[in-house]
Each structure stands twice: as structure tokens, then as C-alpha cells.
């Protein structure tokens, strides 16, 4: 089977499917969900096909939309860097769609499901498009497609969600407009919007003040979209109040794709000497990110709402990725890219479990989760797996990416960053063991009398299998990513990093 048209199909399939789902929803709502699963399975096949083609070829695949050659037309590029992220998005989108079936049926009236799935597929379209495109303005449009569906889906959540979505929208629009203005500066200077073309044209202009202004605007825009501290303030409210079936898709993917855009702009549009020495953006980003990591780790400890705590953890993990980028050596970038992929799965796993806990226990307050392992043994096992991965316990995946991040920081001789990564790992340990203690080892007197004897027969969780199995699959991925991290690095990541490092 030929993979020539896969780069276009992976974006077009969910886009067209979203309209079909909306139309079908008018007639018979039962067909919506199978359509979504079908479209996302097709996307997964396309992503896998692209990965196989890139590995076979060893070179990036270029797809010219409408057969217009690159500097004039829009180009989709699949290389070792983004094919990995495409695969991760496809897997997580499919698993969280399966997860969302019974979750959404519980959270929404039946009549709203077609709209939800329409937005869901639009979100996936945007994420795939941002990842695959090789054109800076096309990236802006797809960024906005992803953001719009996120605003609308977040607003479907619990009390206060619409207000949180509005605040997110104000922030998101500032970010997108800033990015667009930056693109405008690059266009005025070069007359090109193609990333590879810009990469060729820009070095002659590196002394230009206008280019610095454009570069700064791009960075500010992306920083807002990826929720880098201190412009992360939109994130905790909107992701906490979003419905569980939505936050499992949004929370792991959209900020991470923003981080991918940062790496893509720094490496593929600009080059390493520009952002490290000529215009020291990398150290500045690194210090901001280090402050953000500590800040977010402390704030996460201060939360009693499990989901809000995870939201601060996202800010923390974004900080890790940026620290890896800022150390601007091969080890640090390897860590950043590996952490990007690992963190998608870790957050998807933890948000899925949080949704199950909230649906079952009707609370997200971590002090009310005592003895939850008696009723939800498997769910809590998945939670512990996710927690250990975030802390960075080998052989789970979080360990390997943090290992490379620390090595990168050591090689860059940024001892404070080493301290920050290790310190925040310790803080994450406190964070999660506080919950694990509450759940598994509560104070003696708090154990209800009927549960006091330990010979309660083991029962399977009273959770729908459609929710438990995707969460368990995500937990398995955390283990597999840990075991096969070396393969990921040698096959994909080491070839994604430019040879100049």
C-alpha cells in the first residue's frame, strides 16, 4: 500500500469525519461513536504507515498540497521528529475516544454527543495539522482550529467552565495573534512562509532588529499556547473544570503539541547558533522554565483537588521540556523530545484515572479518597503506575527522559537546572505519596468498621470496562515506553536532532 497521500489523509480524514458526524447526528446518534472510532483508527493506520515509510526511507517525506512546489504552496513534512508525535497523538486520541464513550454518556445529555464528537475530531485535526505542517502560516490556522474546539469543549464542563473557557480564549487569542504578528515579520523580511525555505533565507538576516522582534513575538505566542510559566494562568481553571471525557484528550496533547511547535520553530526555522549565542533566547527560556518548574511543583502540593493538582503538574512538565531545549546539546534535546512523548502518555493515563475516580467516588478531594483501593483496586493500580512514571521510577518511562534531561543540564554546566529537575522530582514524590498514603494506608481510625477486616474478597472494579481498559492500556504504554526508550532514541530521536548538535 502506498503511503504517498498519507500526510494529507491524516489531517483530512478527521476533518471530514467531524462534519459527517455532525450531519449523521441529526438522523441517528448511535452511528456517531463508531464513525469517530473509525476515523481515529484510520488516523492511527496512517500514522503507523508514515512512521514505517520514514524509517524505511531514512529521509523526511514531503507532501505538496495541490502539487504546488514548496516556497509557493503549503507543504506537509514528515520527518523523524514529528512522526513520533503523530503516532503518540493517534494512539492517545483513539484510546481517549474509547474512554470517552461511557464517560460522555454519563456527563452529557444524549442530544449533545454529536456536537461533542464533532469538536473532538476537530481538535484531533488541529493537533495532527500543527504537527505535520511545514508552513508557518498554516500552523497558525491549525493552531486556531485546535484552540477553538478546545474552548467549546471546555465550556461544556461543570460550573464555572464557560467563564474559564472565556478567560482561556482571551489568553489564547493574544498568543495566536502574537504568533501571527511574528510570522508577519518573518514574511516581510524574507517573503516566504515555508519553514525549510525560511531556514535557508534567514541566516543572512540574523543581525536584523526586525528579525529579533519577530522571533520574540513568535516565542511569546508559543509560550502562551504551551502554558509556559508565567503565562500558564489560563490552564489550571480551564482543564480542571472541563468534562472528564474532554480533559483526557486536551490535557495531555494540546500543551505538548505547543512544546513541539517551540522545538520545531527553534530547530527548523531558526538554527542553534541563532537562539543560543547570537540572541540568547535559550538561557532566558531555561531560567523562566526552571522558575516555572519549582513554582508549579510547590503549587501542585498546595492543591487538594486531584485534577487541579495534575494541571499544575502539566505546567511543571512543560518546564522540564523547555529546560531540555535550553541546554541546547544533544543529550538535553533527546531528553526534551523523549519527555514530550512520555509526558503525553503519563498525563493521559493520570487524567483518565482521575475521571474514573471522580465518576465513581463523586469527589476529587484527595483527603476523601481513603481506602479507595478496596473498591477500585485496578484503577488505583493504574494511578500508582502513572504516579511512579511521573516521579521517574525506573523502569517506567519518566525515569529515562529525566535522566537525559539531567545529563543535558550537566553537559551544559547549568548546575541550577540539575538542582531544579532533581528537586522537583522530590516534590513530585511528596505530591503522589501523599495521595498513595491517603488511599492505601489511611490512619487507623478512619477505616470504616465494615472494611476493618482484611479478608474482603477481591472484586473487579465496578467501573465500565470501556473506561478501565483504555486507562490500563495507557499504563501499559508507560511501562513499554520505559523498556523501549532506547529504541525510540536510536530510531527516531537521535535522527530528529540536527547534526550540528
Amino acid at each position: 500500500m502506498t503511503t504517498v497521500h498519507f500526510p494529507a489523509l491524516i489531517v483530512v480524514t478527521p476533518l471530514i469525519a467531524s462534519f459527517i458526524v455532525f450531519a449523521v447526528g441529526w438522523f441517528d446518534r448511535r452511528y456517531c461513536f463508531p464513525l469517530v472510532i473509525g476515523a481515529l483508527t484510520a488516523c492511527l493506520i496512517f500514522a503507523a504507515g508514515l512512521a514505517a515509510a520514514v524509517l524505511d526511507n531514512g529521509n523526511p517525506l514531503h507532501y505538496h498540497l495541490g502539487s504546488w512546489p514548496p516556497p509557493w504552496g503549503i507543504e506537509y513534512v514528515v520527518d523523524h521528529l514529528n512522526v513520533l508525535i503523530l503516532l503518540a497523538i493517534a494512539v492517545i486520541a483513539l484510546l481517549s475516544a474509547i474512554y470517552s464513550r461511557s464517560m460522555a454518556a454519563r456527563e452529557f445529555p444524549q442530544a449533545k454527543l454529536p456536537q461533542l464528537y464533532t469538536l473532538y475530531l476537530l481538535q484531533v485535526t488541529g493537533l495532527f495539522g500543527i504537527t505535520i505542517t511545514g508552513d508557518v502560516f498554516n500552523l497558525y490556522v491549525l493552531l486556531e482550529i485546535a484552540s477553538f474546539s478546545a474552548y467549546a469543549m471546555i465550556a461544556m464542563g461543570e460550573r464555572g467552565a464557560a467563564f474559564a473557557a472565556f478567560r482561556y480564549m482571551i489568553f489564547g487569542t493574544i498568543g495566536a495573534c502574537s504568533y501571527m504578528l511574528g510570522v508577519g515579520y518573518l514574511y516581510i523580511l524574507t517573503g516566504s512562509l515555508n519553514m525549510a525555505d525560511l531556514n535557508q533565507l534567514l541566516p543572512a538576516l540574523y543581525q536584523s532588529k526586525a528579525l529579533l522582534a519577530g522571533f520574540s513575538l513568535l516565542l511569546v505566542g508559543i509560550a502562551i499556547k504551551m502554558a509556559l510559566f508565567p503565562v500558564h494562568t489560563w490552564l489550571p481553571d480551564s482543564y480542571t473544570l472541563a468534562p472528564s471525557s474532554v480533559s483526557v484528550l486536551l490535557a495531555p496533547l494540546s500543551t505538548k503539541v505547543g512544546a513541539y511547535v517551540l522545538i520545531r520553530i527553534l530547530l527548523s526555522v531558526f538554527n542553534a547558533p541563532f537562539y543560543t549565542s547570537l540572541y540568547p533566547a535559550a538561557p532566558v527560556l531555561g531560567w523562566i522554565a526552571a522558575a516555572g518548574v519549582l513554582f508549579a511543583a510547590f503549587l501542585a502540593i498546595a492543591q487538594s483537588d486531584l485534577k487541579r493538582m495534575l494541571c499544575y503538574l502539566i505546567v511543571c512538565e512543560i518546564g522540564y521540556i523547555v529546560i531540555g531545549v535550553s541546554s541546547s546539546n544533544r543529550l538535553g534535546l533527546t531528553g526534551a523530545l523523549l519527555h514530550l512523548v512520555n509526558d503525553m502518555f503519563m498525563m493521559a493515563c493520570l487524567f483518565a484515572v482521575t475521571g474514573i475516580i471522580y465518576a465513581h467516588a463523586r469527589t476529587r478531594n484527595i483527603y476523601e479518597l481513603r481506602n479507595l483501593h478496596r473498591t477500585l483496586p485496578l484503577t488505583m493500580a493504574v494511578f500508582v503506575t502513572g504516579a511512579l512514571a511521573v516521579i521517574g521510577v525506573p523502569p517506567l518511562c519518566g525515569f529515562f527522559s529525566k535522566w537525559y534531561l539531567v545529563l543535558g543540564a550537566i553537559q551544559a554546566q547549568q548546575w541550577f537546572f540539575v538542582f531544579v529537575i532533581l528537586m522537583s522530582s522530590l516534590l513530585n514524590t511528596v505530591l503522589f505519596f501523599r495521595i498513595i498514603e491517603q488511599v492505601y494506608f489511611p490512619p487507623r481510625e478512619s477505616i470504616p468498621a465494615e472494611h476493618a477486616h482484611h479478608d474482603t474478597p477481591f472484586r473487579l472494579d465496578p467501573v465500565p470496562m470501556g473506561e478501565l481498559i483504555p486507562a490500563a492500556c495507557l499504563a501499559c504504554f508507560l511501562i513499554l515506553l520505559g523498556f523501549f526508550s532506547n529504541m525510540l532514541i536510536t530510531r527516531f530521536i537521535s535522527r530528529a536532532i540536527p547534526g550540528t548538535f
Partner: protein
Amino acid sequence: MIEYLVTKHSYWFYIILIMMGFYGMMVKNNLMKKLIGMNIFQWSIILFFISIGAKKGATIPIIETHGVLNQAVRAADYINPLPHVLMLTAIVVGVATTGIALALLIIIYQNYGTLEEDEIIEALKK
């Protein structure tokens, strides 16, 4: 100095507009005014893009005699159409943003009976 200000007058205009929009988004208490500020912010960038395609004494970018592309086309005679085409997309994006924002504002107004930010935050604390 005066000449610098006058020759770049359109850019000064966009800077004033974008700052007005930014002020509206950040400072205003009413969500509707925030939205209006957001629109001014977006439109100022769109105007900026449109002005960068314009040239003095140039005409619309349609080449009159077709089939003569082997002759060199003098780019200075034609307005650059690309920023304008990009801004068609950006206008659509702006309209979509406004649409979603208005829908959100309707939901917020139905829930809290007000669009004043401090009153909504007060209501949410209860």
C-alpha cells in the same frame, strides 16, 4: 523626527490600535468589553498585514496579457496579494473567535445574570 513619524503614520496607527485592544482585554471588567478589545487587537494585526502588501503606484495583481509569463513581470507594478489572501483566513479565524466568544458570553449570562467579571468571580466563590 517629524518625517519619521509622518512617513510611518500607518504603523503608528496600528500600534495605537493594538495597545487599545490589549488595554481592553486586560483592564476592562465587563466581559463584552474584553471581547471588543480582543477584536480590536486582532483587526489591528490584520490591518498591519494588509498594509505590508500595498505599494505606491501599483495596481491589482492581475497580469493582463496571459501567456507572456516568459517575459519578466515587474513585481513593483503589482500589489503583493499574498498578505491579503492570508488575511482572508485570519478574518475567518477572527469571526470564528467572536462567534465562540459570544456563545460563551450567552452561557455565562444565563448562569450568573451578569457579565461583570468581579461579580462572576464572587458568584463562583459561593
